[in-house]
């Protein structure tokens, strides 16, 4: 009898591992590859610094509290890549309303992000995983 219980328990453990552990691991793998909490924050910080020096889009950041922006973006990126964060703020549509953002502006920021990741030697295969998560946001922030 106890052997049977052990078998069932083992089976349950395997199912639990397949059902929960694997996806959780897969999601946080990107978070780890980006350097965890500090790495993600540094990438976001580098992206914002690059954007502030980018003639194409620096005017967008006029009158914005930069340290606060970096903090919010770090929290958002951490959440998006499956890290242990919980970003729940206003929707991307709302926060970008009236900013007159164009596709070229979105891509300029993406290029600033790529440069920030290059500076931290994040391999391209990792970069594209983050870019693929961010790409659909274009539909929410451009021409709102």
């Amino acid at each position, binding site marked *: 009898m106890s052997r049977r219980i052990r078998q069932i328990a083992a089976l349950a453990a395997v199912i639990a591992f397949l059902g929960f552990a694997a996806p959780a691991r897969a999601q946080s793998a990107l978070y780890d590859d980006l350097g965890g909490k500090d790495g993600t924050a540094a990438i976001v910080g580098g992206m914002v610094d690059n954007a502030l020096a980018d003639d194409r889009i620096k*005017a*967008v950041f*006029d009158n914005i509290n930069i340290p606060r922006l970096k903090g919010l973006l770090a929290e958002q990126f951490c959440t998006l890549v499956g890290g242990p964060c919980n970003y729940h703020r206003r929707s991307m549509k709302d926060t970008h309303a*009236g900013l*007159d953002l*164009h*596709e*070229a*502006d979105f*891509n*300029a920021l*993406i*290029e600033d992000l*790529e440069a920030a990741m290059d500076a931290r030697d994040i391999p*391209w*295969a990792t*970069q*594209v*995983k983050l*870019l*693929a*998560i961010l*790409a*659909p946001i*274009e*539909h929410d922030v451009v021409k709102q």
Partner: protein
Amino acid sequence: MAFMHIRRAISFLLLSMLALPAAAVAQETPGDSADEPERAHPLFDEGKLLATGGVSQVEGAAGGGLSTWAVIGGYGTDDGIGVTVHETFIGLRSFSLNSVGVAAGLYDRVELSYVHQTFNTGNTGAALGLGKNFKFDEDVYSAKLRLFGTLVYDQSTWVPQTAAGLQYRVNDRPDILHAVGAKDADGVDFYVAATKLFLSESVLAATTLRFTRANQFGILGFGSAAHDGYQPEFEGSLAYLVSKRFAVGAEYRTKPSNLGFSEQNVYDLFAAYFLNKHASVTLAYVDLGTIETRQDQNGVFASLQLGI
């Protein structure tokens, strides 16, 4: 006579497309917020991400080397215009083809392109009694319209960027083409192209369904006495982005076999390097099968694209 009508229709289409920018400018209204500084949005905005305009395929459209993609060429976004020029050389065992072309991408919606090609018959020219290195010239005019989907931003759906296009080719030596059995020296292809970027995997997949009567891409004219109807043909590309500026891949394209000798499907293996948004280089190994009666026409494809 029918071709004159088609030519006129294409000219009208091209002119109407060129009128689009003017209409778009006219619709723009001045910004109403006083405190927001007006940001300039240059017309040649170079706003697309590197490599996402593809390279110039052999008939001048944005694509791979042989196959057509649904992308609009150049780096203009949906607010801008991009223009590219390119030169492509294809050197085969018995023939060579040199192309010089220009393409304009308008508002990431419409692509217009023109290519002038020179086909060198090499030793085959002598065998046909035309003289060694006998050359003839062709012009290819194309228009492509993006229907729906965005290559980069639709990462959370399976929707590919999808476009439809047409391509008109005219050859300056109908007498030569009639001698090899072609019915016409000019003709129109129609196609629908779907291109999907799987960004997280760095993979781009492109497929095109082309309706054509062309012999060897139209270089040897269109149709024959025996086979003259439009046929559906397939083009496929699979590319892997090694980095944001370097892509490698393979392409495959099927073709009709209207003339007496058996025309084969073609493929290439390519590498494309994007120096920046103004310059890219593509090198490929191409295998075009049998051309005219000459077998194993494989060789090199080299292309340089410059753009604003």
